[in-house]
């Protein structure tokens, strides 16, 4: 029964992704000045939004891990699994952002990359979380979880600083689409619908990946726990 429900959920997410693809590629009208390349926007922006969401989840889970480490070890382990899983999924989404961005920038700006506020912030964010995942490989056991949580807090502090620094410095990225001023917002309802469907589809896909990854990590934690207990018992 549980397996059937999971399969249905998976099928639902895939159908949503297909619907989002259809909306972005075939339904939404072609943008007047940029042409078809603007359709990358329906992938680039949802992925960027979601990668920030996942990094935020990782940050909160890291704080919870440190808070619960001594008082509630079992809950702390769950928090650690969430921190790891959301950092991994966040890095994947962030990679999509960093790949689709230059693909769009090359025809529109004429350059692949520029050291602009949001591009630099995103790249540094990506670098920080890759170093977080590296740290998790290099160290082991309970102390690794603590060290990784500490690094995650440092990384989260870094992001607003980089962002502000680059705003003062120079900027080329388009102004925020939502909440960027009186002129912002998508005017065409079909475009807005395509964008909304893609945010929804990618959110469902990302959260499903996250849930699976947390589940796997919890099982691995249990396996490691049993192995430790067995080793201590001298078996």
């Amino acid at each position, binding site marked *: 029964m549980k397996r059937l429900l999971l399969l249905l959920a998976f099928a639902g997410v895939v159908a949503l992704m297909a619907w989002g693809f259809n909306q972005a590629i075939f339904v939404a009208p072609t943008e007047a000045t940029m042409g078809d390349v603007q359709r990358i926007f329906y992938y680039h922006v949802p992925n960027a939004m979601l990668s920030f969401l996942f990094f935020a989840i990782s940050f909160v889970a890291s704080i919870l891990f*440190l808070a619960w480490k001594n008082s509630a070890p079992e809950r702390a382990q769950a928090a650690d699994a969430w921190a790891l899983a959301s950092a991994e999924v966040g890095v994947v989404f962030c990679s999509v952002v960093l790949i689709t961005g230059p693909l769009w920038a090359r025809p529109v700006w004429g350059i692949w990359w520029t050291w602009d506020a949001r591009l630099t912030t995103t790249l*540094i964010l990506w*670098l*920080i979380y890759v*170093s*977080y995942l*590296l*740290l998790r490989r*290099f*160290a*082991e056991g*309970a*102390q*690794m979880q*603590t*060290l990784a949580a*500490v*690094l995650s*807090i*440092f*990384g989260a*502090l*870094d992001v607003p*600083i*980089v962002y*502000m*620094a680059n705003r*003062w*410095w120079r900027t080329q990225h388009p102004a925020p689409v939502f909440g960027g001023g009186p002129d912002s917002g998508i005017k065409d309802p079909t475009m807005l619908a395509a964008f909304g469907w893609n945010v929804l589809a990618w959110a469902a896909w990302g959260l499903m990946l996250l849930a699976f990854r947390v589940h796997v990590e919890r099982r691995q934690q249990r396996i490691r726990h049993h192995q430790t207990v067995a080793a201590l018992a001298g078996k």
Partner: protein
Amino acid sequence: MMQPVSAQPRGWFELVRTHLLKDLRIEWRSREAIQSMLFFALLVVVLFSMAFDPTAAASREIAGGVLCVATLFASVSALNQAWTREIRHEVLDALRLTPADRSAIFVAKVLANFFFVTVVQILLGPVFFIFYNLRPLGNGWLLLAVIPLGTWALVANGTFFAALSIRSRNRELLLPLILFPIFLPALLAMVLAVKTVLTGDGSDPHLLWLKMLAGYDIIFMTVSLLLFDTVLQAE
């Protein structure tokens, strides 16, 4: 000879002084950190000037970056040594057992490393100005604020992450991998501040980069002090 241990609890500043004097004395006897840093930084400066073969005008543009990156690379080797010294003879474990405030250990280590890196910069500075034919066109005295603030950002974070990475495998390799991404905003501010002074282009009349560097120092020093005990006791 062992000195008699007094049972009186010591004040925080006295603890910092004791740790600091110990580190300075070890360095005075071995001169490992300063010598290796000095030679390494010199090599980086020479390598860059050969790789780019800069003219006087171009060297003003890049010199700030070369100086910062040379310091950065050189200090990593010293920072790795900072805590490795404490591992020999289980000094670190002994420090963890003392009832004294852990933040005193951290502050003393930061001060000691700050002193080492500053000595290297003072010795290297003239060489640097000669090799790159530099003459600051802006307000040269500002360098006396910019360079110490940037060095503090590097050393405070570096000392913290060296304590963090000491518990991992390949710790010498891990430190730059986690330090550099976090240090990037400070590097950006330091490079741009130095460049403004050297070129005297008046692009930063409000000393924005200097303020950002100071803010970065305050934020990260506070967080390091708050989390240092967690890192030291991570088991």
